């Protein structure tokens, strides 16, 4: 409930806030002043000036009794607005009482009242008001009363639903335990907490009440002559729309302006209450991607399935660069694990490969080749075909990654329909075949079902089956087991391993969990703060890692043989924020080995053996054999 007052005031400085305030002051001002200044002019009958058109004397002409139309419209503001406010107040009082009553009444009566409220909310209030007019009669008083009663269910429901949420909270339960009376709970604990939404709703309701009252008066149910509000003026003026159109149009304009004012005020009130000022986004610098150097297109580069060179992902709106110069290769039949904490840039790297970086992220790279083709330089249709067939992605949360409204079979089949030109029947058969291939029982029946009937593990199997529809050369699995139970994880990992082995596809396996990665990958890329800081074969992971961060990650894995009396190893500190990266090595602030030099200059990623790279100024000397480029990264 604590919100900054400056945030609230900021709403009033937005264009919407300012114009609403101006309109509100104008409408209320006219309502107060017009009857005093223009009252006589609006009511003086002047037979000599009947039904006149526009003139200097009468700006918008006169009515059949020679009264000035503009003056009458302005004077009518007071009655129109006052009646709308009274209606709202009565509706709110009746509604709040009716909505709070179920909490005071017994269970049965309360339920009956709630059912009645829910039923009557379904009926448009204007209709209800018309029927209630049978009982309460016509006239301003009747119209206000009937409309207020007709609008009360809206307030009642708002009160009841908000109060029900509050009533379920702990402090109400505590008050109940203390045997505080029910009426007292409502008055002291519930009502004060629902005041804000009620005030917001009431502001908007003044607007709708004004529009509805105008309608009722127009129909002859509301204000009766000689009094007049805008609805009455409209009803009197509509007959002469050919001769003096202003007689009908002026009240129409007034109704719209006043209605809009109060409804906008409700909108602003909502924003003030929720403390949400639509602050304009920081000016967006358009970062144009530099034209990639023309890479020699040497056809499929041997068995390299994915080649990424100097990949960066930038978010110009936030001024951050979560992926900073990442280079790596993945070969056919290989499982490459990417490990890092959340925010290390591992998932964005995968998204950049699949051209799925969310707007407004900008992807740059000197090379981004998939199956031997630079996907960024293909035409749109060709790029979609290459990405759609050569690459498949398995996402983290299988509960949300499958579309709940589309049958599972169709979600698989559409890949082959779109990219491989299969007929509907052939694609459907292939989908069933792939579901069977990922061990989904009775795949034909399952293909016809919606994902809602699948368990989490089965959905992830279906996702993997989906990735196999087009025989991809690379599968990216982005935290595919994180959302699953441990026993289900095993099955999914085994399935992924089989898939790679049988189809000679490559797998890029992304996870924050180095233990899971070590079970499936043959080579591991360790990412930290948007960069690869170490690359090493999985065999070296446990006792031959070069980077202090990798070593710390490995040390933090609990295993069965550990001495449970010792505390679990953790890494102190947090990764740097993407907009506050240190100048030197980004791990230096948390590194036990770091010295002044580490904080001054970032270490380059250098090769230290076959398939081994590390970005550290102080790797242990006994790692990975002789350092092939020892001199290259010498500290300046």
């Amino acid at each position: 409930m604590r919100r900054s007052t400056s945030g609230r005031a900021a709403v009033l400085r937005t264009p919407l806030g300012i114009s609403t305030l101006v309109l509100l002051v104008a409408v209320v001002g006219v309502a107060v002043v017009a009857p005093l200044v223009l009252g006589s002019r609006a009511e003086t009958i002047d037979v000599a000036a009947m039904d006149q058109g526009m003139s200097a004397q009468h700006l918008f002409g006169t009515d059949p009794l020679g009264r000035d139309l503009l003056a009458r419209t302005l004077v009518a503001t007071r009655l129109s607005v006052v009646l709308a406010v009274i209606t709202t107040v009565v509706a709110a009082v009746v509604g709040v009482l009716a909505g709070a009553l179920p909490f005071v009444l017994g269970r049965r009566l309360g339920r009956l009242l709630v059912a009645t409220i829910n039923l009557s909310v379904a009926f448009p209030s204007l209709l209800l008001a018309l029927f209630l007019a049978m009982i309460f009669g016509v006239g301003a008083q009747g119209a206000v009363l009937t409309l207020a009663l007709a609008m009360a269910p809206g307030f009642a429901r708002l009160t009841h639903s908000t109060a029900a949420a509050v009533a379920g909270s702990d402090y109400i339960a505590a008050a109940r335990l203390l045997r505080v009376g029910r009426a007292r709970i409502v008055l002291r604990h519930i009502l004060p907490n629902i005041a804000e939404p009620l005030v917001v709703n009431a502001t908007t309701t003044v607007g709708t009440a004004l529009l509805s009252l105008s309608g009722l008066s127009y129909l002859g149910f509301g204000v009766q002559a000689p009094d007049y509000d805008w609805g009455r003026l409209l009803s009197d003026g509509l007959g002469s729309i050919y001769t003096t159109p202003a007689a009908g149009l002026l009240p129409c304009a007034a109704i719209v302006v006043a209605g809009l004012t109060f409804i906008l005020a409700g909108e602003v009130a909502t924003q003030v209450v929720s403390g949400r000022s639509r602050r304009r986004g920081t000016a967006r610098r358009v970062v144009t991607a530099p034209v990639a150097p023309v890479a020699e297109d040497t056809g499929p580069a041997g068995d390299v399935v994915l080649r990424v060179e100097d990949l960066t992902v930038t978010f110009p709106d936030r001024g951050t660069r979560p992926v900073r110069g990442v280079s790596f290769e993945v070969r056919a039949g290989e499982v490459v694990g990417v490990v890092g904490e959340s925010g290390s840039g591992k998932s964005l790297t995968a998204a950049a490969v699949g051209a799925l970086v969310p707007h407004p992220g900008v992807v740059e790279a000197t090379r981004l080749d998939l199956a031997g083709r630079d996907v960024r330089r293909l035409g749109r249709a060709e790029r979609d075909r290459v990405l759609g067939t050569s690459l498949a992605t398995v996402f983290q949360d299988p509960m949300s990654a499958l579309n709940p409204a589309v049958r599972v079979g169709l979600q698989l089949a559409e890949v082959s329909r779109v990219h491989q030109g299969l007929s509907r029947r052939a694609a459907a058969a292939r989908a069933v075949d792939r579901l069977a291939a990922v061990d989904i029982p009775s795949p034909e029946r399952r293909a016809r079902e919606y994902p809602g009937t699948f368990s989490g593990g089965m959905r992830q199997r279906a996702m993997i089956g989906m990735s196999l529809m087009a025989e991809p050369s690379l599968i990216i699995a982005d935290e595919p087991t994180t959302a699953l139970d441990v026993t289900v994880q095993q099955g999914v990992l085994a399935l992924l391993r089989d898939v790679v082995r049988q189809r000679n596809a490559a797998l890029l396996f992304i996870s924050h969990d180095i233990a899971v990665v070590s079970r499936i990958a043959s080579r591991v890329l360790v990412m930290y703060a948007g960069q690869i800081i170490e690359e090493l074969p999985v065999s070296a992971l446990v006792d031959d890692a070069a980077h202090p961060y990798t070593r710390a990650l490995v040390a933090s894995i609990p295993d069965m043989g550990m001495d449970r009396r010792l505390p679990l190893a953790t890494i102190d500190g947090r990764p740097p924020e993407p907009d506050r990266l240190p100048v030197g090595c980004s791990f230096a602030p948390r590194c036990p080995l770091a010295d002044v030099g580490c904080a001054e200059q970032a270490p380059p990623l250098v090769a230290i053996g076959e398939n081994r790279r590390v970005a550290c100024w102080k790797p242990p000397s006994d790692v990975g054999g002789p350092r092939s480029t020892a001199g290259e990264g010498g500290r300046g």
Partner: protein
Amino acid sequence: MTAGPAPRGDRIRSGLRGPWPVFLGRQLGRFAASMVVLATAAFGMVHAIPGDPVRNALGLNAQPAVVAATRRTLGLDDPLWTQYARFLRGLVTWDMGDSLISHVPVAQVMTRLIPATVGLAAAAFVLAVVVAIPLGLLAGIATRDGRSRGTHVAFTSVTGVFSVVPDFVLGVGLVFVFSVTFKVLPVAGQSGPESYVLPVIALAAGPAALLARVVRVEAQRVLAEDYLRTARSKRLPARLVYLRHALPNLLTAALTISGLALSSLLAGTVLVESVFAWPGVGNQLVRSVLSKDFPVVEAMAVFFGGSVLLINLAVDVLIAVVDPRSVIKET
């Protein structure tokens, strides 16, 4: 509408046709119960009129003998429950007595007026849905992930104004522009197809604007869902991404709002029929309420109320068709 009790797995799995019979039975039962409540409310309304309703309707100058005779014909001197039973029977057999003013059978009045009103409301509803859903979806696509701030502002302002301007005011404006100034469309009355244009637009504009706003917000929500990322990762053409994967997931909200829009549109017919002198139920309702012709008003209360209930029923069933999960939730 309150949700049913917690789902019962055994009942869903039993039976070949799944949860549908239970769901439909429950919905129809709720509808029937609401109809009875509605009819009772309409009946109660007449008996809540202060004083003698016949004296009210016929005026203070009516002969006491005439008033007494009318009371007898209407059966107002019978015990209350007899009157109630007769009223319910009349509704079912479509025999609701005569109008106090014109002495024409109420059933005949309703049969004459209903087609004009339903035609108007149906045309306006179809127009609103056909305009609003594509418009909202396109706006949602254009403004997804905070793209195109200009489109966002323009869309929300225009639809905001249209959702506020009341239908009868819009009707007057349309008449002034198209009938009075340019003289291209009729001012009032029901004649050929061209007579439908202005009242239908006046009725449809507000609900269409409201619906388009909701569809845009829903589209933005759906477009940010994980399963849309899956669809994009499959490199499907935009047509499939938006129509197959996004649209069905925003239909539930769109249908709910459409139902509300249709109900408010039905109420709008009262005012719009009055502006355009349309020979429908709404126009007659105003006159009948003003002249306290309560047999007619009773029938109209049941007509309008029943329509609202029927719309709610249709929306609940349609949502269940679009989103089968809600069937399971409800049963």
